[in-house]
């Protein structure tokens, strides 16, 4: 379906093995007085090839947690161990989609997507072909040469998505990647993500505000409580893959939605 994405990748871990381990992860902002506990007591085991959704109220520390996994911030306490080693810095095969599109204004759309390859010294013809295919896939085939300021909010976010996927990462970290997209595009992105994941065996952690998105995509949903953020519920989604749109309207799906919603304090019609 999307051949360019199928570039297989040598992951040393078998699917299902433990990929990452979070132990008592905690993050505090500010000094003694006026300190703000953003996140605390996060314990979790992330398995290889799994897709985990982080769901929680605004300001509960989802972005903060993702940043710590990515090695962009250090935990104030506890530890995050990925593939047996404590995370202290970003890794080569991680892909990060930021909450804001975060494009470089002086680059075209295409060269923004190619940015990670350029950094990794892999800016070859194949990379360009792949970038163009990804952009076409997200509906931006006509905007390769545009500059970020000529794009709408959702278009920027799609460019950022392509940029995070260009180097076929083994761990994809996504901070509300589909928040700015309309339902149709969003559904197409869902299929794209599931395809990529199926073809590359990548592990995915993603933040979302949409309960149904979380249930539809994830193997496991982590529900966070409000400030200070803690994991208040872990919901294993035992629905078959490949998941299809019709699934959304089954009773089983509804039940998962209800449970996740309850964790967030949302009344959901079963």
């Amino acid at each position, binding site marked *: 379906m999307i051949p360019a994405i199928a570039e297989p990748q040598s992951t040393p871990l078998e699917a299902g093995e433990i990929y990452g381990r979070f132990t008592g992860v905690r993050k505090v902002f500010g000094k003694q007085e006026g300190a703000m506990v953003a996140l605390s007591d996060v314990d979790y085991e992330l398995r290889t090839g799994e897709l985990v959704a982080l769901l929680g109220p605004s300001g509960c520390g989802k972005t903060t947690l993702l*940043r710590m996994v*990515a*090695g*962009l911030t250090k935990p104030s306490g506890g530890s995050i161990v990925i593939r047996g080693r404590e995370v202290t*810095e*970003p*890794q*080569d095969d*991680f892909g*990060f989609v*930021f909450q*804001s599109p*975060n494009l*470089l*204004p*002086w680059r075209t759309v295409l060269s923004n997507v190619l*940015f*990670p390859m*350029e*950094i*990794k010294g892999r800016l070859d013809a194949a990379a360009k072909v792949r970038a163009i295919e990804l952009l076409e896939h997200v509906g931006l085939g006509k905007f390769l040469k545009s*500059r970020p*300021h000529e794009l709408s909010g959702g278009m920027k976010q799609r460019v950022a998505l392509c940029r995070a996927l260009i*180097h076929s990462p083994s761990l994809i970290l996504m901070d509300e990647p589909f928040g700015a997209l309309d339902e149709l595009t969003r559904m197409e992105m869902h299929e794209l993500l599931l395809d990529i994941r199926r073809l590359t065996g990548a592990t995915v952690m993603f933040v979302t505000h949409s309960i149904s998105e979380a249930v539809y995509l994830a193997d496991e949903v982590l529900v966070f409580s409000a400030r200070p953020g803690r994991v208040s519920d872990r919901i294993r989604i035992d629905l078959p893959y490949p998941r299809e749109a019709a699934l959304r309207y089954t009773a089983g799906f509804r039940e998962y939605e209800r449970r996740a919603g309850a964790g967030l304090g949302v009344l959901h019609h079963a």
Partner: protein
Amino acid sequence: MPISSDAVTRIAYPVLGLLLLLLLWQGYIVLFDVPQAVLPRPLAVWNATVNNLPLLLSEGRVTLLESVYGFLLAFFLGIPIAVAISSSRTLNLMFYPLLIATQALPKVALAPLILVWLGTGIESKLAIAWLVAFFPIVVDTATGLRSTPTEMLDLAASVRASGWQTFWKIKFPAALPFVITGSKVAITLAVIGAVIGEFISSNEGLGNLLLVANSQVNTPLAFASLLALAVLGMVLYAAVAFIDIALKPWFSEVRH
């Protein structure tokens, strides 16, 4: 034809400004009966310019080259200094104060040192032009490098960009508007620097011509040299401004 009418205003307004200045100048002389030894009439300066045109052009060429080389030196040595200072706290603390110190010193006062080190050739002129011009480039570039948006640095970190890559692909492009702003100030200072260099030791250039004319109380020729310097400064500034405008699309966030 909007383009051509725009071109007209682009020429007309500066000319208008110049005319206004000339009018004030002439008026001031007539009104206050200012002697020629202090301020010659515009016409006298014009005559001196026309009569000495080949001289002004050849001397101007010398000063132009000194200014350009001095500026290039300031640019290519200023940027690394800015990088060093904005990336290493140690270097910053150790050498920034000394850097500032060099700026508060009248460059003319350093003449003996510079002449003894570099002799009376072009080197000493370049050194002074550099010394005078590099500071704005350093300060502006350092500020630009220090104010890279954090999200961009996060992006660089997330793809494990090396320090070098982060610099060239993120920090420097993001700092470019600052670099150009510093360059605009630096290019006019480079002219001043070249002139100071000529004051200190030179047998050519507009600065030298100015001294010669001054010592003979030949004020029309002195003002003609000043005029030539002003034109030189404007041309060089315009060159930098042109680069600025050419780079604008790179940074444009403007919505129509």
